[in-house]
């Protein structure tokens, strides 16, 4: 009978692989997601009905948990605004980590007294506890940072030292626990506290510009946490499903780091501080403002316009009005394209999702390189709520914390208009010389508000 169950688990693992594979290609992504969901449903049913030697089954508790969790999950998924997607994914991820953590705690409590401490079982348990806790608190911090309830100023003194010491304490403590003659629950709870703290200390110093990378990394952690919990039960679907997510998450994380021209280590250790006050720019620090009607006319008589969206567009919920302006300009015979930086927003592909929501056609979205090749022939670039991804300091100023990150080189265009709420710095906390450039004009105000007025002006002009 056990063989049958293992075989069924194997079948659901294979379906998981197909689902994940489908998710990575545009034509099959939707189907891939449904296939993975189906595999999950099957794996859950198998685990519920697989025969077990001991235990009271307690099906009512299981059913209750499943119903409550599913209803909450479904409602939050339906209600969340597209602009809030990064926070949502981060929160979901933290809950998965919390589950791995809970399993780690309870399995220690229920540990068979004859289990030797120096064993794979205890190791797996410690591992699930550690990874689950880090993923839990780390995701909660990332969630708080993204929705603004935790200020970016939440910083610990000497974060690198604290992180390293905490990590060493956890590793040392785990080894110590395994060397004890019997289980010491005090040690387990101390390790739990340290792991929870490590999640906080790990994410806190990392700047908002790097949040996409962090979420992807934490996502990978939760996968590895599931593997750890799977090792406790020797359950293949958890072990392999978890490691698939862990490995693919790492790859996705590395791809995002590459887009910023930084190594993963650099993102984690050298969190973009507010330091690097490289104000040694020789440019004249004067900004020029543009009037709405001037801008409307300029846009209307342009032949080619590029829009560079950033996080500010998401915050102002301005994606729909942005699309309306694009349509209004197209009616006037202007060619309008969107230039999307790979790490614009707070999640990879964040801008793509937002613009898709407001029905912007796929062909209008340009990735980094084609966009940069296009700028010299572009008449007007509208930068809407983007900052660091268009900051020329990244290629000119070797003292800048974002030096080396590929940017959208909007200065190549004939005119640049930056829509911004004020002169505050971007998420990386770096001053942007673009704003003082010869070809740059600023339009201050809330993006949605400004765009609404701009649309009226375009119709009247």
């Amino acid at each position, binding site marked *: 009978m056990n063989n049958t169950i293992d075989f069924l688990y194997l079948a659901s693992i294979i379906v998981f692989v197909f*689902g*994940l*594979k489908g*998710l*990575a*290609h545009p034509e099959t992504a*939707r189907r891939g*997601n449904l296939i*993975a*969901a189906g595999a*999950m449903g099957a*794996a*859950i049913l198998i685990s519920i009905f697989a025969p077990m030697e001991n235990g009271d089954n*307690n099906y009512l508790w299981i059913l*209750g*948990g499943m119903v*409550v*969790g*599913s209803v*909450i*999950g479904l409602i939050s*998924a339906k209600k*969340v605004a597209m602009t809030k*997607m*990064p926070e*949502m*994914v981060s929160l*979901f*991820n933290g*809950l*998965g980590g919390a*589950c791995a953590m809970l399993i780690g*705690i*309870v399995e220690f*409590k*229920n540990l068979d007294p004859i289990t030797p401490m120096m064993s794979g079982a205890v190791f797996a348990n410690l591992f699930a506890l550690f990874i689950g806790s880090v993923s839990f608190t780390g995701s909660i911090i990332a969630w708080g940072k993204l929705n603004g309830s935790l200020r970016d100023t939440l910083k610990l003194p000497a974060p690198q030292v604290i992180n390293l010491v905490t990590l060493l304490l956890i590793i040392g403590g785990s080894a110590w626990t395994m060397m004890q003659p019997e289980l010491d629950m005090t040690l387990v709870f101390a390790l739990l506290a340290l792991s929870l703290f490590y999640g906080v200390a790990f994410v806190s110093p990392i700047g908002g510009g790097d949040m996409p990378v962090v979420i*992807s990394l934490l*996502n990978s952690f*939760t*996968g590895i946490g599931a*593997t750890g919990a*799977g090792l406790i039960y020797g359950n293949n679907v958890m072990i*392999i*499903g978890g490691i*698939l*997510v862990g*490995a*693919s998450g*790492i*790859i*996705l994380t590395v791809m995002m780091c590459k887009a910023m021209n930084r190594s993963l280590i650099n993102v984690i250790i050298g969190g973009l501080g507010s330091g690097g006050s490289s104000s040694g720019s020789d440019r004249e620090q004067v900004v020029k403002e543009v009037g709405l009607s001037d801008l409307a006319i300029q846009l209307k008589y342009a032949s080619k316009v590029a829009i560079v969206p950033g996080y500010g567009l998401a915050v102002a919920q301005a994606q729909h009005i942005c699309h309306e302006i694009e349509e209004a300009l197209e009616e006037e015979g202007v060619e309008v394209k969107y230039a999307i930086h790979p790490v614009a927003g707070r*999640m*990879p*592909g*964040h801008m*793509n*999702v937002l613009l*898709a929501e407001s029905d912007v056609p*796929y062909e209008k*979205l340009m990735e980094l390189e084609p966009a940069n090749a296009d700028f010299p022939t572009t008449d007007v670039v509208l930068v809407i709520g983007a900052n660091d991804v268009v900051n020329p300091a990244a290629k000119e100023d070797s003292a800048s914390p974002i030096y080396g990150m590929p940017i959208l080189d909007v200065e190549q265009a004939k005119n640049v208009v930056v829509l911004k709420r004020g002169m505050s710095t971007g998420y990386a906390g770096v001053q942007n010389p673009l704003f003082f450039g010869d070809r740059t004009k600023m339009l201050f105000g809330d993006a949605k508000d400004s765009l609404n007025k701009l649309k009226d002006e375009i119709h009247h002009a």
Partner: protein
Amino acid sequence: MDTNVLFIELFLAQYLPIITILVLASFLGMEIIGKVPTVLHTPLMSGANAISGVVVIGAIILIRNAAADDYLTLGMGFLGICLAMINVVGGFAVTNRMLDMFKKKNK
């Protein structure tokens, strides 16, 4: 010295199969993803996130193994199932919602 050798032999005999699976599955995970267009980064991350909710199976096994009057285990397991199911159901639903938008404009 001999006891050490024995210990390592025992360790390998017990854990080599699972280590093999872990290593190979990691490679599989990296290979599946390969090159993903930026558009799909968020849905892929969110979908993979839902899959990491397989940890719910652990909580199910935990509850099934427990005695009917072990309320601490049952309560913790119940909470675990709730949290992981939010991750699973919410994750797949949110991913589906995102991907629906891409489909809509392909018309």
